[in-house]
């Protein structure tokens, strides 16, 4: 039995705007086991990024606020930590990499400065030891000639190389969890696979658990052990990789999978797409937020939010279709 290292329960993060309260994340729960890869997929604005920024308490506040919920890391609730405690967590026990490597590194500072400051902050190392560690990490992510390149500035690296630097930096303190917020979305398709591979390989080696946020189902299918599908601030379906891709239950998940272009199936005209737009999450009525776009919508869907249907350990769907099923 693997050990659960992070247990998020009923996380709600709201934003106060002039137009009303934006319920960006509205009751999200999931578990992360040691060394596993969890994929969180969903459209833009579904709350994936906000969920994970909340875990690091990096939500800009105001206007954002974590309204309720717990996130237990080794029995300690992250949301109850004070500033000092949360700073010891960031970069040390939870590493994070972001979507756009072109802007995520400080253009005014050398790579060495940016890597060494993290290592010296969290580990009991002097400058030369921290530097050696940084060079070692750069080598592990596949930067050629790392002891020389470490003195370069970010603009001297390509996008893919910068993302490698970000990965090296995020993993330099041996975190238990790596949060990867769309790490490949801003990269060239040919580079994407390399970055994913580097990340996967390194995390396996260091036994780091990964929360992979993405809207790219291909990435999730390739590497994740478990998948959460988010829609309008909530998780609508959860399951293992196999369960989600072989037997998707929620109509939204089914739609997502159908809309991925496949090379191994005969092409029959236009690619499938889910009609309509994701809902505005301001003042969302108590209904299934997906019902206007759902092909199987019923009367019930328009009035009440579907309860969670548990099909077994870690297999949950939130849809009225499965109300009666055992």
């Amino acid at each position, binding site marked *: 039995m693997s050990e659960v290292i992070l247990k998020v329960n009923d996380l709600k993060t709201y934003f106060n705007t002039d137009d009303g309260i934006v319920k960006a994340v509205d009751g999200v729960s999931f578990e992360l086991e040691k060394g596993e890869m969890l994929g969180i997929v969903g459209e833009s604005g579904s709350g994936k990024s906000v969920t994970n920024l909340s875990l*690091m308490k*990096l939500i*800009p506040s105001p206007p954002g606020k974590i309204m309720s919920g717990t996130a237990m890391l080794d029995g300690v609730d992250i949301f109850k930590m004070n500033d000092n405690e949360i*700073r*010891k*967590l*960031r*970069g*040390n026990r939870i*590493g*994070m990499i*972001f979507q*756009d490597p072109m*802007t*995520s*590194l*400080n*253009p*005014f*500072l050398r790579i060495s400065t940016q890597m060494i*400051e*993290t290592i010296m*902050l*969290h580990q009991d190392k002097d400058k030369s030891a921290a530097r050696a560690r940084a060079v070692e990490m750069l080598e592990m992510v596949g930067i050629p000639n790392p002891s020389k390149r470490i003195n370069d*500035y970010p*603009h001297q690296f390509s996008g893919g190389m910068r993302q490698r630097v*970000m990965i090296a*930096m995020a993993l330099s303190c041996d975190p238990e969890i790596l949060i990867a917020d769309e790490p490949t979305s801003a990269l060239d398709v040919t580079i994407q696979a390399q970055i994913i591979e580097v990340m996967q390989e390194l995390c396996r080696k260091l036994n780091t658990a990964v929360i992979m946020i993405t809207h790219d189902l291909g990435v999730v299918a390739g590497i994740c052990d478990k998948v959460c599908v988010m829609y309008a601030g909530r998780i609508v379906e959860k399951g293992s990789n196999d369960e989600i891709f072989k037997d998707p239950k929620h109509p939204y998940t089914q739609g997502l999978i159908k809309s991925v272009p496949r090379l191994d199936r005969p092409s029959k005209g236009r690619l499938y797409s889910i009609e309509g737009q994701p809902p505005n999450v301001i003042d969302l009525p108590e209904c299934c937020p997906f019902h206007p776009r759902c092909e199987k919508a019923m009367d019930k869907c328009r009035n009440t939010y579907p309860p969670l249907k548990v099909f077994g350990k870690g297999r949950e769907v939130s849809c009225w279709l499965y109300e009666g099923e055992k």
Partner: protein
Amino acid sequence: MSKYIIRRALGLIPTMLIIITVCFFLIRVAPGGPFSSEKKIPPQIMKNIEKKYHMDEPLIQQYGRYVVNVLRGDFGPSYKYKDYDVNYYIAQGLPKSLLLGTISILLAVLLGTAAGMFSALRQNTWVDYTWMSFAVVGISVPVFVLGPVLMYIFSIRLGWLPVAGWIDEHGLKALVLPVLALFYQYFATIARLSRASFLETIRSDYVRTAKAKGLKTSYIMMKHVLKGASLPVVSYLGPAFSGIITGSIVVEQIFRVPGLGRHFVQSAFNRDYTMIMGTVIVYSLILVIMNFLVDVLYGYLDPRISYS
């Protein structure tokens, strides 16, 4: 980088030559001359005066003579004040003007950046509103209004500070009002500029990365934010220097500061050719050197700028 600095430094020479040339001929095109306002002078005496100052020579010869003298560091005799030459007046006035200008620009940069930073950190709170109200006033009120108003309040009404004069009469107190009048507008502009750029930098992705690494806010501000946020302020320093110099001419008049600005203005009225040239050369030299330093500083701050 060092190659670039040398190249830019050499570029200052033609710039100065152009300024000297244009100025030399321009003031001679203006009607009147240094001696035309005197009472009727007998033609023979006039001739003698012109001979003494080499004004009877062809213009191009005068120009050549002047440039050679300037290169030797000699600005020539003043046409108006017979006792001393232009070098003497510059040596007398320049240190005072420089002191006034330097204090003002330093205060403007330091206080302006600090005000911008704190306003950005406490955006939309009373800290922000207070600083920015000060800044709006500073931007909208010109020096020649601010100077007399300060004088009225602090000298005439409250009696705290001297109305006018310099350190030799009143001690360091004499500096307060001229510096206030001169620095305020630049402080205000820098405060607004740096507030905007601090706000932008604080919200940037790389600052989020720095936070995600667990760094302290104060460390992030000094190490990660300050450099990027100060770039707009640095590029504003060029215009600010020229503004401070022209502003100081006005301020020196208002507060009766015995600086170079007084000679700059009066020499133009007097058609005191050598004095005009001397002050123009000194002021433009300060300006081009400051602009040069700003360029070098910019390249030092932003590694993405390459000077190849």
